[in-house]
């Protein structure tokens, strides 16, 4: 059904229930639904951002109907942070990334559920499959949100991007029992802002013509990547809104904020030339864990270090990647962060080498604990074929340990992850 040409002067409108496209009117002429979107550029825009509504919590509610009318918080343990709160919990003020104790103070009746990672991954895969049917250019940002570039797909689908996006959220609801919000605009920056405008079950459009008006009074912290630190820097410069930004010259912004200055200059004008890219190469692989109780015990830290190193290298091996730079991350009880990195002579994907290197870094840090979190990562990734080529003269047993690791990898592959473990991992 190709979009019907619209009469001049009529505002293109789309019914989100029956996907009917028509010109003007506050209700759908076909199904009488009031859930319509009307926008002058509705049928011309093609860059979209889809964000699931309270993804983890929605999955839990779907799988356990008893939870439907209860506040639900997804997060890990007493010391963890909130990873998702359902909209009922959000009314009480619970937010993601809030420490759990604080969330429970605000909403003591909340049902706290430990995240079920594999279930979310599976659901995310199903949503991804739906998006892949719409366009080859899908850029996932996480399990529950993605950019899509639908340029040039209207002919193929016989429907403009807006209709396809409305169909996507409808399918997500009908087939998966989950809701999502759509932002549709002419670049990634605005599409991401738009998807957040009327969550949940939102569908917002920011057209080219209204971009400048729309942004003018918005706070600059809306920009993805402007965190607390960047915000403080902007505050010091007296930049609070996009209108403030517009008063700055490009060169002044560059001088003050470096490469971010250039970005800010363009974003202030609603310009964002980043492409939606289906394949963003991974830059690093890391894992971290927050302890049940703060610890300074080297033995405990060492056990965690090994388990994390194994997780990281399992992922590296699965993707046939190796890393040259080893990163150790520690968070003290007061949340201050210690980060140490070291370049290896050649990339590695062996848990043993990662663990030993990270252990060296841990020893270098010395006694700065107690810590609440430890993390290990590999970066400067290269294909595995270039990894672990030159054995260490001073560590003649390393080759044996490598062979043992490869052998236990094969056993774990066949009989499950816990089929064979190092004693060290039990600490």
């Amino acid at each position, binding site marked *: 059904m190709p979009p019907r040409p619209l009469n001049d002067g009529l505002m293109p409108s789309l019914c989100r229930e029956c996907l009917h496209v028509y010109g003007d009117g506050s209700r759908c002429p076909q199904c009488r639904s009031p859930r319509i979107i009307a926008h002058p550029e509705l049928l011309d825009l093609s860059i979209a951002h889809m964000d699931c509504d309270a993804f983890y919590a929605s999955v839990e509610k779907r799988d356990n109907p008893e939870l439907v009318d209860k506040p639900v918080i997804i997060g890990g343990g007493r010391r963890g942070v909130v990873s998702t709160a359902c909209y009922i919990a959000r009314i009480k003020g619970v937010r993601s990334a809030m420490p759990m104790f604080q969330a429970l103070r605000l909403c003591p009746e909340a049902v706290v559920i430990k995240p079920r990672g594999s279930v979310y991954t599976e659901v995310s895969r199903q949503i991804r499959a739906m998006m892949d049917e719409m366009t080859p250019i899908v850029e996932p940002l996480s399990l529950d949100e993605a950019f899509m570039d639908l340029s040039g797909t209207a002919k193929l689908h016989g429907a403009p991007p807006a209709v396809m996006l409305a169909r996507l959220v409808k399918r997500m609801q009908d087939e998966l029992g989950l809701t999502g919000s759509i932002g549709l605009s002419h670049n990634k920056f605005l599409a991401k802002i738009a998807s957040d405008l009327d969550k949940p079950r939102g569908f917002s459009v920011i057209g080219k013509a209204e971009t400048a008006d729309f942004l003018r009074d918005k706070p600059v912290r809306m920009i993805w990547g402007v965190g607390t630190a960047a915000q403080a820097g902007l505050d010091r410069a007296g930049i609070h809104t996009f209108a403030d930004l517009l008063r700055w010259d490009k060169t002044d912004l560059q001088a003050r904020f470096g490469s971010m200055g250039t970005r800010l200059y363009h974003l202030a004008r609603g310009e964002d030339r980043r492409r939606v890219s289906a394949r963003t190469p991974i830059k690093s692989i890391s894992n971290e864990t927050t302890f049940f109780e703060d610890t300074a015990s080297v033995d405990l830290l060492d056990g965690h270090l090994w388990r994390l190193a194994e997780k990281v290298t399992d992922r590296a091996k699965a993707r046939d990647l190796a890393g040259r730079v080893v990163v150790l991350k520690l968070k003290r009880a007061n949340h201050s962060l210690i980060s140490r990195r*070291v370049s290896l*002579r050649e990339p590695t994907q062996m848990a043993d080498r990662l663990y030993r290197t990270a252990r060296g870094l841990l020893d270098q840090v010395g006694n700065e604990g107690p810590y609440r979190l430890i993390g290990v990562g590999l970066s400067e990734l290269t294909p595995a074929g*270039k990894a672990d*080529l*030159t*054995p*260490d*003269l001073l560590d003649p047993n390393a080759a044996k340990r490598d062979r043992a690791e490869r052998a236990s990898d094969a056993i774990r592959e066949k009989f499950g992850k816990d089929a064979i473990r190092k004693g060290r991992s039990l600490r």
Partner: protein
Amino acid sequence: MKISIERGTLLKAVGQAQSVVERRNTIPILANVLIEADGDTVTFRATDLDIEVVDKVPAMIERAGSTTVSAVTLHEIVRKLPDGALVALSDDGTAGRLTVEAGRSNFSLATLPKEDFPVMASSEYSSNFAAPAPVLRRLFDKSKFAISTEETRYYLNGVYMHVADAEGGKVLRCVATDGHRLARIDADLPDGAAEMPGVIVPRKTVGELRKLLDDDDTTIAVSVSETKVRFATPEITLTSKVIDGTFPDYTRVIPQNNTRKLELDAAEFAKAVDRVATVSSERSRAVKLSLDEDRLVLSVNAPDAGAAEEELAVAYGDERLEIGFNAKYLLEIASQVDRENAVFMFNSSGDPTLMREGNDPSAVYVVMPMRV
């Protein structure tokens, strides 16, 4: 203080000082050189708290005294002055400025009080001996390429100088390794060195020491303790802390039973390795050595970039062997050979390979092969 000093003499002293001071440091006085004029000598002293260099040079002293001034700035000024100029340094002791005059140039530099300048505590040396500059030069020049830069293995960040038992008796030995290659260089044991404790001389000290060793006729007075090492010519004294760590037992990683012998012209070999490695743009360029009866084929295969091959006539009489190395490592050890042919001793493609110069056991190199 008021002194006049020849530009060349001043440049050398200040040059040594500015290379010792730490460029980026949080303690301002450490960027300065301490200048002390007394009698007919001026002493230039610089330190980064680990290394201290003291240079005594003759000068015309009108008024004795002392001050400290930025080593880098003073060096830059002196460097830009015309050759042969006579440079006058003066301060009135109160204004906090040092005046530098040469010809029509006039500079006024900020100073810091000399009382704040940290002077390295003197210590007792358990061993003192004298060694000719060329001997030390050979020991350090041939080993320093193998020093590790890995901070986690800080005990490899220097040259291990110690007394060792070699076939012909005790020797003064320098060893450096980064876990991928190793250099072991021996010299005749100087009188008085036998009781010397083994010390790890840091990389930076090795670099500074090199500047004392250019003149063949100089004799260097070496003093060693458990924590410090000192190298001195009549003019310059270089004192350094040594690395507080244990150098690994290197003897067990030097292969004793490698039997497959390859002899070749090191210069020809190095040129060929350099040529074939050109096609690879990777950080660690792997070169494959394929050995057959008196024939060596060097090859590089970089799937993304291209391939290269070169054949060399060599002396080799053992079974066929294929073994890979990091091109850079091969180049570095090959460039250590200066008199005779390079002799490589292989075992298998996975075992450490030994290299020496002819039959000379006083310089031995080990290099780890790379999977290719």
